[in-house]
């Protein structure tokens, strides 16, 4: 195997390249990225970069020296436009073709856009340049409406509110972050935002944007009300960046469809946000838009490309920082999972909780409690029976809500 191409030069693509080199593979390596920027980190974009707590250059993942040490043919600012599986070629926008013997696809996702998102004042946030443009707009002191209250939307709202702006968060679901975490944690996130003065309009879809002379002026909701706005942030999810793979013959269905070894076809692997694969630990197909997964899956895909033959079976980890609160999670969080508080008290801003699904602990969540959450990860790794959580002996239920039934953590035996 003389030539490996990696399409995507963000966290996953960079990690794949470093893994190949770190393991001594010394063939011809091409790293292709659609953005002209060198590889940078995305989690700070919706947090410290937006608020200005961290300068943009601190988002870069490697120094020029470290990139040079990769001894890779870096093709930045050159989007891949097509893949020819049979002839082992990637076509670039400039008309060039890159030959490969093996390929790693790490093209990530692109933000979904609603109609009229080309109006002035309407922003999405995916790239560093998106973040810098949004920050510049926020510095003018606008009225801000954030459409979509997933992780990105809630983080952007928190950042804008922290900058002292008037912020309204709009979400068609009844609570924020409902899809990842369910109704109860979602309600706590809603409380968190209200406590910091962010206005919430949940359970209300957006009907359309209002504008004057090409500049957005407001967001009209399904109930007919209009929220005045100078800046509108569209945080309505994203789609896998697989347009360039149309017609390649690779199976595409919510991302590049891979097997448990992150392999899409012989000699072709995928990693990061774009990869859909079968996770044997949970016995289910998944696609994760988590920072940690980009690194872990890139290591796994590059290793399997080199012959490891190891299924990729991680316990997913992700986190979100909003205001002074850090929510962290291990595992998966199906909508029909049962939920129990393991320790602490949701009403005072520090607790851990477990999600039970199909008789086992599927996920654990920590709210301002990182160290303890880490010890609870074991419940997910070991597929602890859900009865070990529910039978561990309930503490008195918390006021007003018996579903927040707490249990004594030490009886779980997860504390060494």
């Amino acid at each position, binding site marked *: 195997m003389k030539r490996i191409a990696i399409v995507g030069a963000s966290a996953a693509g960079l*990690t794949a390249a*470093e893994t190949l080199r770190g393991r001594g593979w010394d063939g011809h390596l091409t790293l292709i990225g659609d953005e002209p920027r060198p590889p940078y*980190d995305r*989690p700070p974009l919706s947090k410290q970069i937006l608020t200005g707590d961290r300068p943009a250059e*601190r988002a870069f*993942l490697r*120094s*020029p*020296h*470290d990139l040079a040490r990769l001894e890779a043919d870096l093709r930045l600012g050159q989007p891949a436009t097509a893949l020819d599986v049979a002839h082992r070629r990637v076509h670039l926008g400039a008309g060039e073709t890159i030959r490969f013997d093996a390929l790693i696809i790490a093209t990530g996702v692109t933000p979904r856009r609603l109609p009229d998102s080309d109006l002035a004042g309407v922003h999405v946030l995916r790239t560093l340049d998106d973040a810098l443009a949004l920050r510049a707009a926020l510095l003018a002191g606008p009225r801000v409406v954030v459409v979509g209250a997933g992780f990105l939307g809630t983080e952007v709202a928190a950042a804008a509110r922290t900058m002292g702006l008037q912020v309204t968060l709009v979400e068609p679901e009844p609570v924020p972050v409902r899809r990842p975490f369910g109704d109860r944690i979602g309600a706590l996130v809603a409380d968190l935002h209200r406590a910091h003065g962010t206005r919430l309009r949940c359970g209300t879809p957006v009907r359309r944007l209002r504008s004057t002379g090409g500049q957005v002026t407001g967001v009209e909701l399904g109930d007919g009300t209009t929220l005045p706005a100078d800046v509108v942030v569209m945080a309505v999810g994203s789609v896998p960046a697989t347009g360039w793979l149309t017609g390649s013959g690779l199976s595409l269905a919510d991302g590049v469809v891979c097997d448990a070894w992150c392999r899409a076809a012989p000699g072709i692997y995928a990693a990061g946000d774009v990869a859909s694969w079968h996770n044997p630990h949970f016995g289910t197909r998944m696609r994760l838009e988590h*920072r*940690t997964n980009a*690194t*872990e899956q890139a*290591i796994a895909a590059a290793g399997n490309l080199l012959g490891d033959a190891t299924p990729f079976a991680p316990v997913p*980890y992700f*986190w979100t*920082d909003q205001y002074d609160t*850090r929510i*962290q999670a291990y595992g998966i969080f199906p909508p029909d999972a049962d939920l129990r508080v393991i320790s602490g008290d949701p009403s005072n801003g520090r607790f851990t909780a477990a999600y039970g699904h199909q008789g086992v602990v599927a996920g654990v969540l920590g709210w*301002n*409690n*990182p*160290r303890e*959450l*880490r010890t609870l*990860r074991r419940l997910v790794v070991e597929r602890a029976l859900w009865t070990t959580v529910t039978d561990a002996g309930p503490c008195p239920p918390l006021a007003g809500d018996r579903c927040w039934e707490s249990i004594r953590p030490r009886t779980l035996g997860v504390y060494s």
Partner: protein
Amino acid sequence: MKVIVDQHKCVASGQCVLTAPEVFDQREEDGIVVLLTETPPEHLMDDVRQAATLCPAQAIWLAEQEKQEDKE
């Protein structure tokens, strides 16, 4: 070879403690990284390198990688 951590960049993920518990710990109150030893024994260095790679905040370095131009 020296291990360096940046507590301001750290996001308290605990990935380093899971990977190299002899070298890293977390503060009780907020989970921010605590370095147990700046100069781990050689047999732990593979784990430390892995921890640096896995850190989602890129808050861990090895001094062997730190060249003059990175400091400027």
